[in-house]
């Protein structure tokens, strides 16, 4: 059984259909890249899997470990192990990064009937992970993402991923807004989280990211469907030919 199975998914927003019969299966231990032009439905797919309100699922199924993900609230999906690294992480003035991390971590542990972290254990754990991602301690004391550079915001997303230890990570255009050094750090963090129990879906326009995070499978998405799937070499083909051939095929 695949960790994530998307079957014939049809999704619309305000009457406009975006996903038009999408199928996808991701096994534990695999990294899948989804590439496609703007408007192809990549972010919509990530939002629908993670439970963002506002979308109408008109048909299809999303199974996670065999369970119906669409029947769960966003927070329940998160506590079951679904993690979305946002393309544009929000800013919350007045809530420190540290307090937010603690609230999130303990909410998940509580939902899994695990003991909540004590303050010293939590601080120790955050510091370890932050150091591994070159995140300064001063950043953790600031308002969540407030005044963070693009690179800092993305590193903060990876920090959350590392702390929450999800089994499915969806990285929605994690490379946007990153310079080459930040991209290396973020990709390094993501690679360090690859494991045989964890699956990742990396969504991107560009092949550059896939030089750092080498996928097992590459999917080309266009007009709300997966048009072609292949190995990592498919990304090279895309760079050479562009997305036009897949849009024409739609």
């Amino acid at each position: 059984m695949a960790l994530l199975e998307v079957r014939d998914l049809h999704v619309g927003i305000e009457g406009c259909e975006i996903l038009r019969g999408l199928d996808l299966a991701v096994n534990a231990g695999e990294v899948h890249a989804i590439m496609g032009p703007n408007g192809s439905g990549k972010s919509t797919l990530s939002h629908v899997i993670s439970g963002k309100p506002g979308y109408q699922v008109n048909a299809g199924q999303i199974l996670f470990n065999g369970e119906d993900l669409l029947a769960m609230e966003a927070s329940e999906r998160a506590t079951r192990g679904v993690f979305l690294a946002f393309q544009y992480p929000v800013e919350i003035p007045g809530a420190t990064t540290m307090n937010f991390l603690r609230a999130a971590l303990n909410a998940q542990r509580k939902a899994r009937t695990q003991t909540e972290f004590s303050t010293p254990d939590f601080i120790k754990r955050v510091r370890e992970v932050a150091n591994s991602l070159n995140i300064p301690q001063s950043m953790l004391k600031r308002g969540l993402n407030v005044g963070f550079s693009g690179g800092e915001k993305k590193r903060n997303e990876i920090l959350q991923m590392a702390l929450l230890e999800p089994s499915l990570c969806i990285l929605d255009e994690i490379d946007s807004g990153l310079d080459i050094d930040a991209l290396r750090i973020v990709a390094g963090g993501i690679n360090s989280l690859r494991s045989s129990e964890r699956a990742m879906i990396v969504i991107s326009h560009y092949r550059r990211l896939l030089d750092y995070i080498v996928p097992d499978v590459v999917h080309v998405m266009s007009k709300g469907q997966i048009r072609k799937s292949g190995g990592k070499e498919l990304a090279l083909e895309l760079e050479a030919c562009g997305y036009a051939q897949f849009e024409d095929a739609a």
Partner: protein
Amino acid sequence: MKQVMTKTVAGRATDDVFAAAHGRLPGSGLVAHIRARAFEAYQRAGLPHRRIEAWKYTDLRTLIGAVLPLAPRPDAAALMRAAVSVKQTAVDRAVKLVLVDGIFAPELSDVDSLEDGVDVWSLREVLEDTTDSAMAGLVLSTTTDAVISLNAAMATDGFVITIAEGEAVKRPIQIVHVATGSLVSNFTRSYLQLGQGAHAAVVESFVSAEGASGYQTNDATIALVGDEASLSHIRLASDAADAVNISSSIIAVGAKAKLDFFSMTCSGSVSRYQGFVTLTGEGSKLSANAVNLIRHKQHVDTTMVVDHAVPHCTSREKFRAVIDECGRSVLQGRIVVRPGAQKTDATLTTRALLLSDEARADNKPELEILADDVTCGHGSTSGALDGALVFYLRARGLSEKDAQALLIGAFLGEAIEEIVPESLRDFVTAQTEHWMQARR
């Protein structure tokens, strides 16, 4: 032609309340004369109503209808019930001064542990003794506001607190107002004077004992902050759910002095805090923040008038309201810059967060600038929680209510983070978390 005044039923009822209370009110001669004048001033205006601009959104004629009879003196049973509430509301390390049903309760207070340089008298004691017209005028001072006049006419007790020049008071002074009765009114008044260079923190808490309901509180604080002095004045109102609390402050801040004011109202059916702060000495600074936490059908009004009377003064005001269910918030602020008060630097922001479709917020910031070399600004927003923020938190595993609580805490944090001393910040934060906990 002689004018004939007709009175409403409520107006006549208030006359009866004053007449019945007359024999119990402390002070005679000069004090009684001042009280009678204050009551006449109240009678001319009556309970404030919506046609008075400052009370446009809090029409007491509609909301409360009438003034209730004066609360009886608390008996031993009332004092015992009050003691429980005092204990629950006590601020860590604070010196407590307790008023039960508007009467000083020495047995529940810490008057023996006052620090050197701090003198405290019961207002009753001062009014019964004074023949000093200046002192009587100060402690019973009023504005044109009718509820302050009524307070001067009816005040049963309170405190006169003086802090000597240069004294830095280490422990906060906490005035605890406890109501134990039902369908009665309490009138309290305190006078606070900080000498030159003195520093102190004063917390005013309004609470109820078990079984108290439907009572009305009318409190007033008169404060003089001396030159180069600093006062942290914190007001926390958590009355019974069906109580009415009208509190007023009249504060004058001297040269190079600092006033840090914070108000939080998190209960009561009708509440209004109104502050009248005058920056009277050059180089003085005001930081005034307020938080209204509102649910059910509660009506909470925070109104502040900051008067820049002299040049080179600074004021910063941040008002925040969180409104759930059918609650209603009123946030009004007026900044007045007098002619000649050049180099005034003043800002005011009012922000309301509406958690339900039925919640209502009225924000009214105003500037009245009569000088030409000033920096003044105001801003006002009202809106619901940002769905994108809620989803971000939910995608990390927080429940809907927990996500909302974190965002509300962040919203309020902007006003709470400036409370001094810092030790009181945690106390206030705990109160807001308690309020949010009740929503879950």
